[in-house]
């Protein structure tokens, strides 16, 4: 149907988006790649120059680099476990007939809309503060010693905060999937005498599998680059105890001006993200064919 003219017009209309994204992706990434093979320090340029792979070698020799990758993975996997399992349970609960379902939904989804610095600071000061926080109040009420969350268990504290931010997202997506489950199918299974567990295992869970995949993939993309939550709570510490890869790159680049090392970290982050992206694209792409 489309004439040659509309074809070229279509291309013309697409050009701004494509060109912008192409430039945005290629130019900075190429610069990062270039810097990752350089020694480059704007404050102390004496030793600047090409250094081959030595920036990458730090990932083997410098414990901070290895720990940051480990922390990144711990954060991603823990939050995924909490939000996916919690999200399934919560979606099942909210899907039950009840009074005030709409309000329950609104309350549960709300943390997702809280900007990261606010979420982190509220948890840090008002909930987890070892002296004045609500957790400390509760601990004292039961006669226990309040926990110094950010001093003693910084990663756990950050995981709790990030999980609180993402649990609503998982719940909302899974609930949406759950509600699209055919009611007749459920009734038929019930009539056949299938108990709650077997109905969940053989009917509900397979139906939700696609949504679960999507939740895992999308959350992983965002969880790989958690930043503000760490910045305002532990600042990566104590030591490097709660430094993830994005935070390490930020420290190296903008605080220590070790641009080469930071760039190598950035490239490692890209590789990590690409592994995830590979699976994500396949899952989303499949849907596009339908």
């Amino acid at each position, binding site marked *: 149907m489309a004439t040659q003219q*509309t074809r070229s017009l*279509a291309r013309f*209309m*697409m050009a*701004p*988006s*494509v060109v*912008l*994204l192409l430039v945005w992706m290629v130019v*900075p*990434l190429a*610069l*990062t790649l270039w810097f990752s093979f350089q020694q480059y320090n704007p404050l102390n340029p004496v030793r600047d120059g090409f250094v081959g792979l030595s920036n990458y070698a730090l990932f083997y020799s410098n414990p901070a680099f290895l720990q940051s990758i480990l922390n990144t993975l711990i954060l991603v996997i823990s939050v995924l476990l909490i939000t996916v399992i919690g999200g399934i349970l919560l979606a099942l*609960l*909210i899907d*039950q*007939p*009840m009074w*005030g379902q709409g*309000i329950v939904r*609104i*309350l*549960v*989804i*709300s943390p*997702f*809309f*809280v*900007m*990261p*610095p606010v979420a982190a*600071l*509220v*948890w840090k*000061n008002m*909930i987890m503060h070892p002296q*004045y926080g609500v957790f400390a109040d*509760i601990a004292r009420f039961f006669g226990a010693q309040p926990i110094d969350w950010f001093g003693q268990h910084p990663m756990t504290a950050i995981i709790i905060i990030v999980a609180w931010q993402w649990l609503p997202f998982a719940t909302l997506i899974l609930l949406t*999937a759950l509600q699209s489950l055919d009611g007749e199918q459920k009734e038929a299974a019930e009539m056949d005498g299938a108990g709650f567990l077997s109905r969940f295992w053989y009917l509900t869970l397979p139906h939700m599998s696609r*949504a679960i995949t*999507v939740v895992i993939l*999308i959350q992983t993309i965002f969880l790989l*680059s958690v*930043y*503000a939550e760490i*910045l*305002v*709570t532990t*600042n990566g510490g104590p030591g490097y105890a709660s430094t993830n890869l994005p935070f390490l*790159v930020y420290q190296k680049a*903008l605080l220590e001006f070790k641009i080469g090392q930071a*760039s190598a970290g*950035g490239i490692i*982050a*890209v590789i990590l*993200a*690409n592994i995830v*992206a590979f699976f994500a694209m396949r*899952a*989303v792409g499949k849907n596009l064919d339908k």
Partner: protein
Amino acid sequence: MARSVTTRHKTIATVAAWIVALLIFFPILYTIITSFKSEQEAIQGFNLIPSGTFESYSEVQAQSGYFKFFLNSVILSVGSTILALLVAIPAAWSMAFSPTKRTKDILMWMLSTKMMPAVAVLFPIYLIFRNLGLLDSRIGLMVMLMLINLPIVVWMLYTYFREIPGEILEAARMDGASLWNEIIYVLTPMAVPGIASTMLLNIILAWNEAFWTIRLTTTDAAPLTAFISSFSSPQGLFWAKLSAASTLAIAPILIMGWFSQKQLVRGLTFGAVK
């Protein structure tokens, strides 16, 4: 019998769900409550009933010029969204109505740019911004936010546009409508709901973006994300003020979010879950 079982079931579900929901909502609720306390009250242990003072709100404005940051947040999130729509609407339109063999590849490629971690390009962007004099400028950050959200905007618009029946456009074409007329008089009215949803979600995402907004600003262009982050190294009593600043920062987006639950699912899953 069956009926009473159902009622019992419903009661249990209601109680359980409300308890869980209130626990999840508690940090937000407590922030709102604390914002109406005095600084003294705020640290005097667990207390759900504030004295109801507005002191903290006026102090936040008086001490740090809160309104400036709020205004920056509004300008950046709305501005970047409008920019993104201007670029994305033609692209999504052409992909939805004149798809080619490569349309799918282009869409997937756009999505892949979203997966690039921001830190990977932190220094080059910083350098480029510095050399162009864009650090701490609203226009620079606006372009930045537009770029990071552009793939989501194109995708969302595309999934909405695809649902508009193509026959209507053909009919308009038969009636001799030119392409621009077609877009303005036929397509746009049908696309408005989709565009509005996309806009809403993108404003939310841009408002809460907390990497570039913190790193590329200092004072002039700093939005609320950057302002609130500055509370991480406090002097003296500040919880009531932190709560007041936080309440104002999240309130508008919370309300917008409540209205956009469905669009959120669709936008953030790139149409994979509806």
